[in-house]
C-alpha cells in the first residue's frame, strides 16, 4: 500500500512537472511569437516606407495607403476604441459604438500612419524583451535615430482569434491609448459625448477620411 501511494505521488509530481514544462515551453513559444509578430509588422511597414519604388511626393499617398492598410490589419481598433472610452463605452448604444469605432479607427490610423511614415524611415529597432500574461503581451523595443538617440516603445498586444493584435503603443512611458482616454474623458466631462463625436467627425472630414475601420472588424 505504501508503495502504491509513493508511486501515485511520483506520477503526480511528474505530471505537474511536465505541465509546468509544457506551460513554460508554450509561453516561450508564445513569447517568441509576440516578438516575431511585432517584428514582422514593423519590418513589413518599414519595407513599404523605405521601398524605393514608393519614394517621392508623387508616391506619398500610395505609400501612406499601404501603411494604413497594414496598421488597420494589425491593430484592433475596436478594442482600442472601447478602451479609449473607458466607462463611457457601456452607456453608448450599439449604433453609437459602431460609429465611434469607425471614427476612432480612421483618426487613429491616420495619426499613427503619419508617425510611422514621417519617423520610421530614419529609425532602426532593437527588440529588448517581451512578457506574456495569458491573453495579453508586451513587447519592449528601442528605436534608435541616426544619432543613436533612443526612444523606448512598448507594444501592448492581445490574443484575438489565435493571432496577436496590437491595442496600444507606449512611447517613452506615454500610452497612446491612455492619452486618448484622458482627452476623451475631459471632453465628455466638460462638454458631452456628442461634442466629442462632433469634433472627431470634423477632423475626419477635414482629413478626407471616412471609410469604416479595416482589417480587425
Amino acid at each position, binding site marked *: 500500500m505504501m508503495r502504491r501511494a509513493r508511486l501515485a505521488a511520483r506520477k503526480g509530481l511528474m505530471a505537474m512537472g511536465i505541465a509546468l514544462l509544457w506551460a513554460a515551453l508554450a509561453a516561450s513559444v508564445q513569447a517568441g511569437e509576440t516578438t516575431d509578430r511585432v517584428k514582422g509588422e514593423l519590418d513589413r511597414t518599414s519595407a513599404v516606407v523605405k521601398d524605393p519604388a514608393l519614394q517621392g511626393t508623387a508616391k506619398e499617398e500610395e505609400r501612406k495607403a499601404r501603411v494604413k492598410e497594414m496598421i488597420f490589419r494589425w491593430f484592433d481598433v475596436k478594442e482600442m476604441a472601447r478602451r479609449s472610452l473607458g466607462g463611457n463605452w457601456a452607456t453608448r448604444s450599439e449604433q453609437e459604438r459602431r460609429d465611434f469605432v469607425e471614427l476612432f479607427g480612421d483618426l487613429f490610423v491616420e495619426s499613427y500612419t503619419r508617425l510611422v511614415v514621417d519617423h520610421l524611415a530614419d529609425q532602426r529597432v532593437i527588440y529588448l524583451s517581451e512578457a506574456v500574461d495569458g491573453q495579453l503581451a508586451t513587447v519592449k523595443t528601442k528605436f534608435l535615430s541616426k544619432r543613436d538617440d*533612443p526612444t523606448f516603445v512598448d507594444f501592448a498586444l492581445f490574443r484575438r482569434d489565435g493571432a496577436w493584435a496590437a491595442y496600444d503603443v507606449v*512611447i517613452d512611458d506615454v500610452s497612446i491609448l491612455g492619452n486618448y482616454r484622458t482627452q476623451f474623458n475631459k471632453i465628455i466631462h466638460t462638454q458631452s459625448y456628442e461634442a466629442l463625436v462632433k469634433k472627431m467627425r470634423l477632423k475626419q472630414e477635414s482629413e478626407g477620411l471616412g471609410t469604416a475601420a479595416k482589417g480587425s472588424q
Partner: protein
Amino acid sequence: MRMRKLMARTVLLHPRIALISALIVTLLSVYVTVQRLSFTSTRSALAPLKGRLAQLQGEYRRAFGDLDRAIIVIQSDDQDRAKRFAAALARRLRAQVPEVEEVIDRFDLKALEDHFLLYLSPQELIDLKGKLQEHRAFLEELSAEPGLNRLFQLIQREISKSLVGHLFTGFLEEGDGEEQRPLDLALLVVLLEQIKAWTEGPQVYVSPWSRFFAGIDENDDRDGYLWSEDKRFLFVLATVKGDAESFIRFRRPIEGIRKEIRALQQRYPGIKAGVTGDPAMEYDEVSAAQRDSGLATVISLVGVALLVVVVFRGVLRPLMGLIALVMGVCWAFGFAAITVGHLSMLSVVLAPMLIGIGMDYGIHLLARYEEERGRGYPIREALERAFEGAGPGILQAALTTAVALFTLMLTRISALRELGFITGSGLLLTLVSTFVVLPPLLLFWDRRNAVVAVVSPSLSLRPPAFLEACYRRPRTVLALSGLATMIALYALSSVGFDGNILRLQAEGTESVIWELKIIKNSERSTSYGVILARTLEEVREKTLALESLPTISKVESIATVMPENQERKLPLLRELQPVLEGVGLEAAPPAAVDLEGLRDTLSRIKAKMLTPEEVEKWDRKDRPPLEMMGKVGRLIEEFQTLLAGHDPEEVRRRLSTYQGELFHDFRDKVALLARAVASGPVGIKDLPRDLKKQFIGRDGSYLLRVFPRQDPWEVASQAAFVADMRRVDPDAVGDPVEGHEVIATMKRGYQQVGIYALIGVAILILLNFRDLRYFLLAKVPLLVGAVWTAGLMQLFRVKFNLANLIIIPLIVAPGVENGLLIVHRYREEAESVVLPRSIGKGVTLSSLTTMVGFGSLMTAHHRGAFSIGLLVTLGVGSVLAVSLTLLPALLTLAAKRPSMMKGMAHARSEGEL
C-alpha cells in the same frame, strides 16, 4: 545850478572825507556780501507764488514733507547687474556721504510676498490654474521623489505626453476658444544650461523655477525695485541735506553721490548712471552760474576798462571812473546781501549790468569835464560846470532807468520783484558812487599833474566825421530807417517764446541730460503733477479718470501698490487650493545623482527634439518651437561631451550641490504658492511703512503722482498736461502746475513791466522837458531801437525765454539815456547843434560799455545767461544805431534854427576856417 551848488558844498569841499567814507562803505559791503549773500536756482527763485496755488502747495508740503530728493538713474541691459549696482551704491552712499539722509534703492515688499498671486490678473490666475492642473502629476511626483534624475525623467515624460497628445488628440483642443499651450521648453533649457555650468565649476545658484511658477518672478515689479516700465532704467532715490550757509547749497551731497557713482562704475563697466532731480539741477545750474558770473564780471570789467582807455586816450582818468564804478558795484552787492540776501539766475546779471550801465555815468561826467577843461576852466570850476551841464542829464537817466527797473516790483513773481529792487537800487548806488568818488579823484590827480586837455570848442561841437554824411541827408536816413522799422515790425510778430527752463541750462549738464533721457525713454520724469485724495475710493476713481487722458502716461498711488479686483481674484485663488493638494512639502532629501541615468534620460529627450524637416511636416496650428528644440539638442550634446571630459565623482559632487539648492528652492516656491493660495486680501495695513510714507500723508490724505506723456518742460505740452489734470481735479499741484503758473505770470508780469516802464519813463521825461516835441524826440531811440531789436532777434533766431525777458526793463536804460542826453544837449545848444562830439562820444562809449558789460555774458555756458548777453547786446546796439542815425536826422529836420554845422560848412567853403 542846484546840482552844482550841492556838489560844490559837499564832495568838492571835503574830498578826502568823501573818499574815506566811500572806502569804508566799500569794505563793509564786501564783508557783508561774503558773509550773507547766497545763490538760489531758477526753479527755486520762480517757485513762490501767492494765492490758491501757493496754499495748495503748502498743504501738500505739510502732508508729505518738503524733501530735497535727488534721483539716481541707472541704465543697463542686464537687470541683475543694475540691481547689484543699485544695492552697492546705496550702501556706499549711506556709509560715505553724510549729507545723504536717506537712500531708497528698493522697497521691502517681503510683507506682500505671500499675496503675490493677487497681483496677477484674473486671466493669469486662470492660466496658472490650468498649468498647475496640467502638471499636477509632475509636481506631485517630483515632490514625492525629489532629485535631478527624477526631474529630467518627468520632463522627458511631459515632452512625450505633449508630442503624443499633439499627434493624436491635438485636434480636440482646436476651435473651442481654448488657448493651445505650445510645448514650453524654457524650464528645460535653463536647467540644461545650469547643469552644464555646474559641471564646469561651482556657480552662484539662480532659481530656474520662475519659468514654471508664473508670478514668482524675482525680476518683476514686486521685487521692490524702482524700474521704469520697460526695465531700461532703475531709479534710486536719495534724500539730501542742503547747506543753507553755503553759496551752492547741494555741492557736498551731489558731488559725493557722483564720486561714489564713478568709483563704483570701475567695478561695473558698462553700467551708465547719473544724478538728476531738483537738488542736482540746482547744483549744476548754480555752480555753472558761479563760474560764468565770475568770468563774465572779469571780462566785462576788463573790456569796459580797455574801451574807456582807448576812447579817452588815457589810462588814469578812465581808471578813476572804474574805481568809482567798482565801489558802487560793491555797495550794490552789499545792499543786496542785507536786504534780499540772495541772487538768482535772473539777478546774476547784476554785476555786468551795473558795470555796463553804471560806467556810463562816469563816462558822461568825465567827457563833459574834459570838454570844460578844454575850454580853459580850472579843475574845480570844470567839475562844477560838468555837474551843472551833464549832471541833470545823468541824474535823469539814472532815475529813469531805476524807475524802469523798479517797475519789476509790481509783478507777482518774487524773483522779479527782488530783481527790480536789487538792480534799481544798485544802479542808484553806482550813480552815488560816481558822483561821490570820481570828482575827488579827479580833483586830487589833476591838481598834482596840472594836465590840461585842450579841445577846440568848435571841434568839440562837430559831430563825428563818419556820421556827417548821414546828417547832410536827413531825409534819406529817415526813409531808410523807416524801411528798416517796417521790416522789423513785420518780424516782431514771429518772435517766439521758449518757456523750457531746461534749455536755459548749460549744454551737457548731467542732470539735464538724464532728465531728458528719462522723459524720452520712460513713462516718468522728475517733474510730475500731484493730486490729493481723501479716500482710497477717490484715489481709484481719479486714477481711472486720469489714465484715460491723452497727456498722462502713468499714475502712481497707493492703489498702484495694492492689488486690483481682489474680490474677483480671491475666489480664483481658492480654486487653486485643491490643485496643490498632494504636492508635498516634506523635506525629503533628493536622491543621489546618477550620471548614467541622467545621460540616458537626456538622450531620450534629445530624440524627441524634432528636426527642421520634421517641423515642416507638422500640420497643426501650434508649431513646435524649433529654435528651442535645436537649443535643447545642442545643450544636451555639450553636456554629454563635458561629462566625458570630467572626473565623474567631481561632476557628481557638483551636481549634488546644485541639486540641493534646486530642491530647497523648489520647496520654498511651492510653500510660497501654498501660502499665497491661502492668503487673504491686501489692505493698507499690510503695506510696508516706507511705501506708505510715499503715498499717505501725515494728515491721512492720499497722494497721486501724475506723470506726463510728453515733455513737461515744454510750454505747450505742459499747458495741455496741466489742463488735463485740472479737468479731474482743479486743485492739482506739482512742478508742472507751478511752472505753468509761473510762466504765465512772468509773461504777464513782463508785459506789465513794459507798459509801466514806458509810462513811468514817459512821465519822467515829460516832467523833465515839459515840452511835447522834446519828449517825443527823446523817446525815439527807445521805441525804434526796441523794434529793430525784435527784427534782429528774428534774424539771429533768438527767442524770448524766462531769463532774457529781463531785456524789457534793461533796454529802457540806454534808450532813455541816449535820447535824454542828446535831446538835452540839443536844447542846451538852442537846437543849433545836433550831435556834438562829446555827446556822440559819450553816447557811443556808454552804449559800447553796456554792450561789453552784458556781452561778457555770452561767454557763459548757462544758455539763459548767454541769451541775456546776446539779446541785450543786440538791443543796445540797435538803440545806439538809432541814436546816431535816425535821431540826429529827426533833430536836424525838427530844428528851429539852422544847424551850426551848415553854417560852418558854408564858412569852410568861403575859406573862413
